[in-house]
């Protein structure tokens, strides 16, 4: 399954690959309608819990790639699977761009156009559920000792989650 991934989310393809109709294709789908309003202010990136832990993940960049018509790169990228649909970017976007819904549209297109198998979406959904379970279990273990929780405990949890970032 890994072979269908392209590792090109940070590489701009030569313009021969552009598909200027790609943005309209997405805008025509439910949830994609405001994509062209994006003025690249970056609010989405700053709201995104995934960007917080993944330095090169940027919703703004995905939108820009779509608007530029970099269809193959976008549909083949790992990035479109990263969104965890928290909708914070959408709530804060001043232009009402519905990024999580655009990701849903992209995932559907990726399946339809053979970038991933249909089973992949099921797998991603399962990952999401498993991740929620892990989160809940970790929380439970902290909550158990909430009266005696120390700075060291928090540091340990941070180490477990692999970074020192704070929730926003």
């Amino acid at each position, binding site marked *: 399954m890994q072979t269908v991934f392209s590792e090109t989310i940070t590489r*701009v393809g030569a313009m021969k690959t552009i598909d200027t109709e790609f943005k309209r294709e997405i805008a025509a789908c439910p949830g994609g309608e405001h994509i062209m*309003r994006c*003025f690249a202010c970056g609010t989405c990136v700053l*709201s995104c819990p995934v960007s917080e832990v993944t*330095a090169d993940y940027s919703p703004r960049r995905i939108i*820009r790639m779509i608007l530029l018509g970099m269809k193959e790169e976008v549909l083949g990228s790992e990035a479109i699977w990263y969104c965890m649909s928290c909708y914070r970017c959408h709530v804060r976007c001043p*232009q009402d761009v519905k990024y999580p819904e655009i990701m849903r549209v992209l995932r559907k297109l990726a399946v339809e156009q053979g970038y991933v198998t249909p089973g992949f979406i099921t797998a991603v959904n399962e990952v999401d559920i498993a991740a929620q379970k892990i989160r809940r279990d970790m929380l439970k273990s902290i909550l158990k000792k909430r009266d005696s929780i120390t700075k060291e405990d928090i540091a340990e949890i941070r180490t477990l989650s692999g970074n020192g970032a704070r929730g926003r």
Partner: protein
Amino acid sequence: MNKRVLVIGGGIGGVQAGLDLAGMGIKVTLVEEKPNIGGRMAQLDKTFPTNDCSTCILSPKLLELASSPDVDIYTCASVEGIVKTEDGFVARIKKRARFVDEKKCTACGLCAQKCPVKVPDPFNKNITMSKCIRIPYAQAVPAVYMIDREHCLRLLEGKCGVCEKVCPAGAIDYEQQDEIKELSVGAVIVATGAEEFTPRIRPEYGYGIYENVVTSIEYERFLSASGPTNGHIVRPSDQKEPKRVAFIQCVGSRDVASGELGYCSSFCCMQATKDAVVTCEHGPNIRSTIFYIDIRAYGKDFDRFVDRAKTEHGVEYKRSRISGIIESPDTKNLVVRYITPDGALKDEEFDLVVLSVGLRMPDGLGGLLEGIGVKLDAYGFCRSGAFSPGDTGVDGVYVCGTVTGPMDIPETVVSASAAASLAARGLVSPDREPLGKAADRKEPDTSGSPIAVGVVVCRCGTNIASVVDVPSVVEYAASIPNVTFSEELLYACSQDSIRHIINKIREHGLNRVVVASCSPRTHEALFQKGLEQAGLNKYLLQMTNIRDQCSWVHRDTPDRATEKAKELVRMAVGKARHLTPLHERYSDVKKDCLVIGGGLAGMMAALDVADNGFVVHLIEQESFLGGNLLKIKSLLTGEDVASAVERIVKRVLEHPKIELFLNTDIAGIEGYVGNFTTKLLTGDRETSVEHGAVIVATGAREHVTESYGYRTDPYVVTGREFETILEKKNPLLKYVKRIAMIQCVDSREGERNYCSRVCCSQAVKNILRLKERYPEKTVYVLYRDMRTYGLREPYYTAARETGALFLRYDASRKPVVEKIEQGSFIIDVFDKILQETVRLPVQLLVLGVGIDPLDTNDRVAKMLKVPLTQDGFFSEAHVKLRPVDFSTEGVFVCGMAHGPKHTDESIAQALAAAARALTILTRDRIRSQAYSASVDEALCTGCGTCAEVCAYGAIEIDKEKARVNELLCKGCGTCTAACFSGAIDLSGFTNKQIVKEFEELFI
């Protein structure tokens, strides 16, 4: 026809409209909801881009309005309803009780001192407490206290009554009732303004939850010397001075998602820049950071102001719209996360965050306006058509200021003057009472009595007093010979202070007054009026500037500043001893107006003056009228230009009061306000016209570029040329599939370091027109900042929605165009979002080249003795409050001669210039100034040096003696300095006075 005009709203818009109408001899009733006039401008600390003190430049206008015999001001009042009648309107005005008699109150302030009830102070945005009986601020006009009926113990519970007991004037009246008054008027000007919106619509910024998050208007109060912290910046949580201040732009503006505020509020970028600069000036350790989407420095000298903020004050600009703010619970500091230029996320901690809130229409205004048939737009603004600014669609009802859309102060002032000129139509009377009664008044002869100098030292809030030890200056002044009285005042310019000075003049028999405060440029007239009212000749006043030239520049050495202030006062007294009474002269006004330039602004100004019944001589160099407008096809807002131009030109050609001179040049202009003679050259025929005022509407031109291969390839065109291609359905459009628009070509850098204001909107307009017919074409816009300010922003949104892609570039990394062949280019542009260079294949380049001043501006400026800006546009008298005046009286400017601007803005400015010209043309006589050079014929050798150096042509050599035309003399003093034999002297600045002034310095 009823000759009174109702002005609703007493902010700077309403005040300017009132002043212009009164200046034309029209009676005005101004209704203001608040207890004082001045509006939001009175709450601001300083104004950009000159950092003038807002109150200081506003106060003289407020006092001028309040003292005008033609103006009635109703404060604490609102218009409840307006009904159309046969010859105008009847307005129902509700005047709410102040519980203080306006005629009796002297604003001494005893009542507030003794009042036991503390309430949040609305003028200070409820940051501090004030008393239940109060005056909003020291310079408030009218200077009358008011009881807050919601909190007064006497009114609510029948207890207390302290204010009545302590008021020495007997002004307190608990029985005062609200009054309803019906007023018949001939026209109505709506200048009700807009309100700042609450940042709570974006809860992620924590306003109202985090103590150290404040709005930009609250912050203005912190910065103001008369504000809750006396001008010290402190953060609300711990009253400590913040070291790191963040400004977050576009809170609510450009935000279609929250509350449908899809427009730009147009002034906040510059307000934040100004506040950031002022913040940095407060101390070497304070840092300011501005987070923004685009910096909209579209006005005159704004880009330079931003550059100075960066380079001279260290203000940091970070292009990143902020998503949310997090407070550290222990320190109450605020963490702001932003995106760095290379795309990384960074957290930065600040002590204080300022949210730049924009403007929205207040709820509830609609009812009044819609009741008389005025239509509002989707945002609730009362927007006029681009070709009829100020118009509401209802005859006799006009609008100005932010009620028509978000705008800054100068645009508000322009629109107010424009509305005044519209409202004046049919009301201007040619036979108005001439000025000059004051001159006939007998002044007491003080020449024989001993010299008695009074010295007033102004604290200017904290502007002076925080540096200069004012009490010691007052004490010192008392010891100077001939000084019989000296004292300090918090604000010498406030209404009650002026009254106080008048009383002291009478009480102590003063016959010279020295005011040690700010600049005579802004305040001399005010204090002179006070002297007049006290019965003294107003030229017995001497001002000395211990603020701009002392406290402001010697902030770090207060002791030495105090010494300097004492010396300045001593010198002023030295001169004051030798002051003599002077008298102004009067001259008749010629009733015609000269308008230079037959473009849009010139035609509109000419029509407006002519419609008000005055003859206009309209001069155009070319053989046709219309100017730049002939090359524009449609406006952003959709109006068809060709039919509008045709209509306007036709009206000009047919107007019986307009005398048109085509193919005509100006050979020379002589004279002065009210009395000009201009020589015109049509071919080789010379004519001359006489007129009382001049309106400069010479326009500007599209910049000619050599960048990006323009003129070497037919597929490289300017934005304006592209308009024509679109309009003419040029076959080229069939071939071209991909288009790139490159903005800011040769602009905002180097020699042309200014923004041409219109090119962003032009690109947006072209996209919208293109996409109407060819939705499939690809458009890239390469820009530096999109400056679709104000209500132009929704069109930018619409342009993006068509699929046009806007890519930003930095001036240091411009797009590189490679020409493959004719009509085929590859553009390499570094995309900040992808952090990589993108290659764009396009077939047509459209360049946003901007606007250049005319080369001939220099010649015209010299003839009229008016200045040009560094960039070569005409320089108005004051960027904020005198946007169409020149410092040379009787000469006005409008349109692109003043600077790049949109069609609607040019027209508004044309109407404003006409209104200002009408304030002169409607007079029969005009007063000229008293300072004038005079020649001692016994000493004059007739060498002619004085005549050579005089810039105003006021001196002639007649029978080997110099002769001064006192009406032309501006009192500049050049001739006295140049005269070899000391034969010329200047009244008010005589050699003796100046020598005596300087002698004091060397005692």
